[in-house]
């Protein structure tokens, strides 16, 4: 398992780079955040679908390209580098991933081709509390005739406002924080009793809160096995953590590049500020953290594709380290820019905001450190 890109991967990276260069500017993001609506460009979404990006990790049998997360990560890194907003993570990794990993043959046939060609957007509703805590689920699903009835509240559902189907994690047995007793349900947002609250996030991405009030579902809405949803959920969340980390290292590298250039042009006291050793040494340390982050992302993506035994612990290392580096990056990027860095007109602040949201999604550094220790038995 080599940690450098092969030829096909380099080509994919190039096409992703030119896609961003040709069809996106950060200005687009500024327009989107002030507009209502879906919060992303549907034209861009169509292009991404055309390029096959949404099909990358799915089997050909379901309209996929049969590639892996190593390839998906390459695309997400470039989108993060350009601050591009598209519901790829939500639809391909979260919602699509849940169906891919836990869905029945019917469910896969019904949804994966649509996810792969972009005609449907899926997502996952897992969180209920302020801190990432995947097994803490109080949303209940009780049997109701031949089907199910769901009640509860979900927060921070990525692109929940735009989803055609939402995979909702509900408790069918066990106590509030038990891993056992979780079940996944595929829900049409139009279902009676389901309220979708659209929220604009700090970084201009959009997430929804869900209110479930006696939402009635047929038996075949269940994804995977009743009470064993955590088996699928764990796998989806570790992939999401690593995929999001790819987006993050894109933003980290771009922040570093923007700042490095500023250090080389900005003059103070008659010298380029990049010649001040205090800033130089900080930039060098920042560089080291960035390089280590890039490496662990590459390794974690490949561990997913190899279905390696250590993929879960690597994912924890990955999200913890990249989250810390993203925080450092936001801090240094803004601080080294001085006054202009805290104004809304400069892009550096937008990168910090996106890094911050990603830092806290799917578990922050402390969550993943704790999880790592648990996995290692201490």
């Amino acid at each position: 398992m080599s940690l450098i890109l092969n030829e096909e991967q380099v080509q994919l990276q190039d096409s992703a780079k030119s896609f961003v260069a040709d069809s996106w500017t950060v200005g687009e993001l500024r327009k989107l955040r002030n507009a209502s609506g879906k919060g992303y460009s549907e034209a861009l979404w169509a292009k991404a679908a055309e390029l096959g990006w949404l099909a990358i990790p799915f089997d050909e049998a379901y309209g996929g390209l049969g590639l892996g997360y190593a390839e998906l990560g390459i695309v997400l890194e470039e989108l993060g580098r350009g601050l591009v907003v598209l519901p790829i993570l939500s639809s391909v990794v979260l919602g699509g991933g849940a169906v891919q990993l836990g869905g029945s043959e019917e469910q896969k046939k019904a949804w994966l081709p649509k996810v792969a060609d972009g005609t449907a957007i899926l997502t996952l509703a897992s969180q209920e509390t302020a801190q990432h805590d995947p097994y803490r689920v109080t949303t209940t699903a009780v049997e109701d005739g031949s089907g199910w009835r769901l009640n509860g509240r979900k927060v921070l559902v990525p692109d929940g406002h735009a989803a055609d189907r939402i995979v909702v994690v509900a408790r069918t047995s066990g106590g509030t924080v038990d891993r056992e007793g979780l079940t996944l349900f595929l829900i049409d947002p139009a279902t009676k009793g389901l309220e979708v609250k659209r929220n604009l996030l700090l970084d201009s991405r959009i997430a929804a809160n869900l209110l479930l009030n006696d939402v009635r579902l047929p038996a075949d809405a269940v994804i995977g096995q009743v009470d064993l949803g955590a088996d699928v959920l764990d796998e989806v969340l570790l992939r999401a953590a690593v995929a999001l980390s790819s987006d993050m290292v894109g933003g980290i590298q771009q922040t570093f590049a923007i700042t490095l250039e500023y250090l080389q042009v900005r003059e103070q006291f008659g010298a380029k500020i990049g010649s001040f050793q205090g800033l130089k040494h900080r930039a060098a340390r920042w560089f080291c953290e960035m390089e280590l982050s890039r490496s662990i992302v590459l390794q974690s993506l490949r561990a997913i594709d190899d279905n390696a035994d250590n993929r879960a612990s690597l994912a924890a290392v990955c999200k913890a380290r990249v989250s810390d580096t993203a925080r450092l990056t936001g801090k240094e990027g803004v601080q080294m820019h001085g006054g202009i860095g805290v104004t809304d007109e400069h892009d550096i602040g937008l990168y910090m905001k996106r890094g911050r949201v990603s830092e806290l999604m799917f578990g922050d550094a402390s969550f993943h450190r704790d999880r790592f220790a648990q996995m290692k038995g201490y």
Partner: protein
Amino acid sequence: MIDLEAFRSETRDWLEANCPASCRGKGSVLPDMMWGGRRQTFNHPDHKLWFDRLVEKGYTVPVWAPAYGGAGLTPEQNKVLQEEMAKIGTRSMLFNFGIAMLAPALLEFATEEQKQLHLTRIARGEIRWCQGYSEPGAGSDLASLRTRAVREGDEYVVNGQKIWTSDANVSDWIFCLVRTDPAAPKHQGISFLLIDMESPGVSTSPIELISGSSPFCQTFFDNVRVPASQLIYQENKGWDVAKKLLLHERTMLADGGRGSSSGPVRKSLLQVARDALQAPEGRLPHAAFREEIVQFEMDRISYEATLKRTMDAVKAGKGMGPEGSMFKLYLSEMNQRGSDLRQRIAGHESLVWSGEDCPADERQITREWLYGKASTILGGTSEIQLNIISKRVLGLPGD
């Protein structure tokens, strides 16, 4: 002691006679503070009445000389006055840049005539001042400012741009640094000028920060004609005035009140954690947050001990000196750490900027976190503070 007690009873009587009941204790109609100036409004006739009486008595600036609109009180007398006002739950509300920043500079550098004119207006709350130092091109290298002032007869013609001027859009006058001799070494070609914001050619535009709208503005000067009588101190000697003001500013920031980056704190860090973790009591179930909260609390306690130690030294007649830089540096970074921690603990809900289901508390936490990013940059970056400490306090050689 005796006449201090005499003063106390006089003061008591005066307050009794002059402070309207509506301006005392709970439900007082008085605001916590007022900036003064042409735009000052009064939410209640008694507010105006009380303020006018304070002005007449010189109690808006009690320790200033009567000649400049003060009451000429000694520090001890002023202490008594404040105590007595506190007793009946009233206050002398006036506070602005004029009192805190400009006045000390005028007292040291202005002509008698200038003092008479400007100090009195400040004392009477007639003029609200703002400060025009920073420029887009200059940044930390303040002295490299480029706003030009050219002498023409008994006027200066000013052209240029200032940035980070707090409240410029609601202030009446601005005191600013302008370049009067481009040929001279950068510190020696600067003058200190007072400008009426209503002069033709002055315009302002507010700056939007990453945290949203802010008190900061850009201020533009387009052929603004300024009477030479509004030059403070000698031409090209403005940097001497500026240095005094900057030291002053750092001292003000040190007490953490105004200029604290974390702003008014609604909930304690611990409470934010208890709410976010749904742990109303007992040991916090999140070990890392618990440790970080303790660390922050301990830093705060140590910082306050240091502030007290320094103030005790000042009281004992030893000056504060350049370690004032330490306070700006440490306080701004500590509060920045605090608001960063606060937002991480608030977690998911604090990621919401606006929308259909956006909790107010967390909105506030997020904006304070973002606003805190400015606290280690504006008013002298942390890097500048570190330079000052290593040079002036530690005596390390320049690069």
